[in-house]
């Protein structure tokens, strides 16, 4: 089409052409999305058929304009009303009996991390913000890494707290992740801030609250000038982040490889600190054992304990997972029932 004059007949022919396109285009409409396409074709603001044809009005002889305009409006409103009624039809009725859209979708199996992994990763994320990296070590260890370097006195009742599975004399399944403290201190120079997740073993019979293997998470910070205040503050900060704002309580405890030693409690998650059966009316829940690294551990790894100080903790993410998800029996974590594991899809 040139910019020349348009005759009334040409204009009316174009309108008829548009009107005749409608039925065949409607045949392609099965869903709302198809209707949208047709709507744009006819009534689009940029290049819809009516938008283009109405541009011709200005090129008609002056006398023909009223008739042409009236005809344009008639055809346009006819198309609009057909599209509107089609739209209503689509909204209220299924397109056909075969496509009952209330039927269920076709899913894939969901994968999931183990709940203990989920807890580990969440704790790891908080400590990463505090400058920690991840360290790993072997599960089979020598006595020196598991006990000797960690200041366990030989033939002492402290050993009773670690009922040990042995492979050979001097070779054992580690009873805690603390050997990774020693390995890391031997392999690196402070500042050291590590988290060491891993499996540990105890000669405990498998029951509702004990397992002969469980996951532990160790933390260690060693540098010049680290104090008991840093220790308390960092762990209290962690508890705040992990549990939501919470009070913490540090009480005296004993581990051969930390001194001063402590247990950290948070307000009972069940009663909020008021006292209940879960917390034996104390209002507190034990979360981790911790303390300042014993100077003899720093010396055992070949560093000067006068120069370097530090703190460490060990906690059981399995126990935390049980608390958080309300899992009543530790064995459920090991059973690996797919119906249990599926619940932790993220």
């Amino acid at each position, binding site marked *: 089409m040139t910019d020349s004059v348009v005759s009334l007949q040409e204009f009316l022919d174009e309108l008829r052409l548009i009107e005749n396109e409608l039925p065949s285009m409607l045949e392609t409409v099965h869903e709302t999305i198809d209707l949208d396409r047709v709507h744009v074709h006819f009534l689009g603001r940029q290049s819809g058929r009516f938008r283009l044809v109405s541009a011709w009005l200005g090129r008609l002889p002056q006398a023909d304009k009223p008739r042409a305009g009236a005809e344009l409006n008639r055809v346009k409103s006819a198309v609009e009303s057909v599209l509107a009624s089609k739209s209503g039809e689509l909204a209220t009725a299924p397109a056909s009996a075969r496509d009952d859209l209330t039927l269920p979708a076709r899913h894939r199996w969901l994968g999931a991390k183990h709940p203990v992994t989920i807890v580990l990763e969440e704790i790891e994320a908080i400590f990463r913000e505090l400058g920690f990296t991840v360290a790993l070590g072997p599960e089979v260890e020598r006595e020196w890494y598991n006990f000797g370097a960690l200041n366990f006195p030989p033939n002492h009742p402290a050993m009773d707290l670690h009922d040990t599975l042995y492979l050979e004399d001097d070779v054992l399944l580690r009873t805690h992740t603390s050997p990774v403290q020693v390995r890391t201190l031997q392999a690196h120079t402070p500042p050291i801030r590590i988290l060491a997740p891993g499996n540990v073993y105890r000669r405990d019979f498998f029951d509702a609250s004990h397992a002969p293997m469980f996951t532990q998470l160790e933390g260690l910070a060693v540098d010049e000038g680290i104090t008991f*205040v*840093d220790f308390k503050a960092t762990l209290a900060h962690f508890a705040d982040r992990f549990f939501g704002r919470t009070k913490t309580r540090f009480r005296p405890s004993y581990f051969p490889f930390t001194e001063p030693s*402590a247990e950290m409690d948070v307000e009972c998650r069940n009663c909020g600190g008021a006292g209940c059966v879960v917390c034996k009316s104390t209002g507190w829940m034990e979360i981790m054992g911790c303390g300042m690294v014993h100077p003899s551990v720093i010396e055992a790894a070949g560093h000067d304990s006068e120069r370097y100080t530090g703190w460490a903790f060990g906690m059981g993410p399995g126990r935390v997972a049980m608390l958080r998800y309300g899992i009543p029996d530790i064995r459920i974590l090991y059973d690996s029932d797919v119906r249990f594991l599926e619940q932790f899809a993220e």
Partner: protein
Amino acid sequence: MNASYAWLKSFVPFPHSPAELRDLLTARAATVDDVVPLRADLETIVVGLVVEAAAHPDSDHLHVTKVDAGTGELLDVVCGAPNVRAGSKYPFAGVGTTLPGGLTLERRKIRGQWSNGMLCSARELQLGDEHDGILELDTDAAPGTPFLHAYPAGDTRLVIDVLPNRPDLLSHVGVAREIAAATRLPMSRELPVALTASVPAAVRVAARGTTGGVSVRLDDAAGCPRYMGVVIRGVRVAPSPAWLTDRLVAVGSRAINNIVDVTNYVMHESGQPMHAFDVAKLAGPALVIRRARDGETIVTLDGVSRALRTDTTVIADAEHAQAIAGVMGGSTSEVSDATTDLLLEVAHFDPASVRRARVALGLATDASYRFERYVDIENAAHVLERTAQLIVALAGGRIDGEPVDVYPDPRAPRHVPLRVARVERLLGVAVAARDIKELLTAVGFAFAAGDGVALEVTVPAWRSDVIGEIDLIEEVARLRGYESFPDDLRPFRVGTSPDAPRASLERAVRTRLVAAGLLETRSMPFVAGADEGFVRVANPLAANEGYLRREVLDTLARRAEYNLARMQRNVRLFEIGATFAPSGSAMPVEEVHVAALVMGARRPPHFTEQSPPAFDAWDAKALAEELLDAMRIADASLVPGDGDVLWNVRRAGEHIGGVSRVTLDAPVWAAPAFGIEIRLAAVDSSPVAPAGAHAPAATSAAPTRAAIAYRALPTTPSSEIDVALLVPSNLPAAMVEETIRAAAGGLLESLVVVDEYHGDGVPAGFRSIAWRLTFRDPARTLQSKEIAGRREKILRTLEKEHNVRQRSS
């Protein structure tokens, strides 16, 4: 350690309730695990206020009262006690309450007047014999308050978790010392009876001596660094008085007779276990502290005959072992009702020796528990005097001469230097020398004159755990209270040790498998195993878990069976875990593997299909390839295997994993199971450096994942051709592909199998495989005759090398 609240309170006049005392001890000394009221039978009794008291209309001794028991209404109660007065408070048992005697109260009429409960006398509550009237309470407690909160009725047991470093807390004196220090109250050692007998000063000897006609010889000073004895003659063995048996019951001990009970009592008071021998039963009469002889046996107090090892210390008479040192006495010389003359033993046995004997005999007692942890060697003389006095006070008799004290090598006091500046460097808060002295003195430490910079601290003999400066700093922190240190997060330096490479590898693999719809397990590595090829646990928990797994699939298979047993047929599990293989040396070869097991439906059921397709070998192969991809291993190949092994995963000539059919103990309806196992990383369990040394900055040889390399997207069109070939059944498709790639040249972008077909039109011994070849030149558009030329070349080469021809359509 069970402690009696009343006993502690008799030593220190603290105002704390049992729950408050629990919190105080937990904060300052040792965690109190439990608080057990021993008169739980009085828990339903409340404080009742008599508002009105009038004479009963039909009785000359009964009263009709109105009682406020906190219920919001006044109760009519008939009371027969002469001392009932309006305005006074008494213990009140309402309707439905069961009294200690077993009587449950009901609403009833007494001489025509309703009575809704009972005001109680001391005897009715089993609080004494007083029954002349009801128990008037001198209390501010509101009506309805539990009686036990308003009246010191019954004792409360505190169950204290005493850790191995604090044997001094295994006694009421030790716990009371901590309470006195924390409350700044004085401490005494009150007893309910007066001690009047005088005990002569003991005679100290190095190896042998005599007391009361009994000779005592110490042959094993290593097993028994100190042995004290005293003879008491003419005792009358009888039951103990109530105050003593009450206290023993409160700590969970059983009353036997006054002699045994006194030794138990003083043990719970002081922490020192003791033993009493019947002098009449001792051959000699003599006691010899020596090692057990080869083949020697003893019948212990529990009636069991026990064979002794020659490294066990015994207390023998002139002929036989009469007690296992620090563990248990023998039945021959046991104190009986007929005993009149006894020898009281107060000894210090070597902790490690007692521990060895206890483990060897499998016999743990209150005594062995304490001796293993250390009993204050300097306290023996005091304990001997007090126990002898208490025996004479309760059982009569007289002390026969000077006690003997065999103490060849007396303990020297321990002095530990403490730098005031070091306290601040470790605790982060300055503590003045004066405050340090005050805190430590309160629990028995002593100070030589010091300059305020370095202190010289003398450790009390009962604190075997305090050896170095750090132990004193812990004492300062503990006694000051951990809660007194601020929780300010102060500046810190970030760690400089890099992430373990294996950690990121595990994360990548886990993410990939979770995205593939698999479920992570974290199971134990114990398997049934066999001596050959498996690492054995020397002291396993169960015979069928005596070995460590070589493959993670081994444990995943058991987990799959667990699911099948619970009718879960669609199993898709994975685990990232350690495996262990014998190495020929004591340390096994430890590796971390990733394994997956899939069986059953590939996706959940849906109405659009009859049943979803089941996992098959191709799914398993895909998982293996995806794992290798997640690990960024490009140079591994899956080589067809034999039997249940479908593919071996090989890399640089090394076996790094496999894909297999997994045989399960499975019901008939179970689908076939497929397993994938791939080695993620070797674990280095060798020492990093010798003890006491460090060896920094050896770069880790552990695997790291290669970085992703970006490839520019194509700007030129590709050309595709399909070729359908007749491939002999025994010619692997991979070999054909290799030939196609070689002949196609560098412009071949991809090569994909689109069809495999047997049947009509395909001769026997052959199959038809169709490949789609995609060519692209990144710089220009390929011309159709170039493609045709390559096609010809490929077909010619295939015919020449493998005698493979195109399938004629």
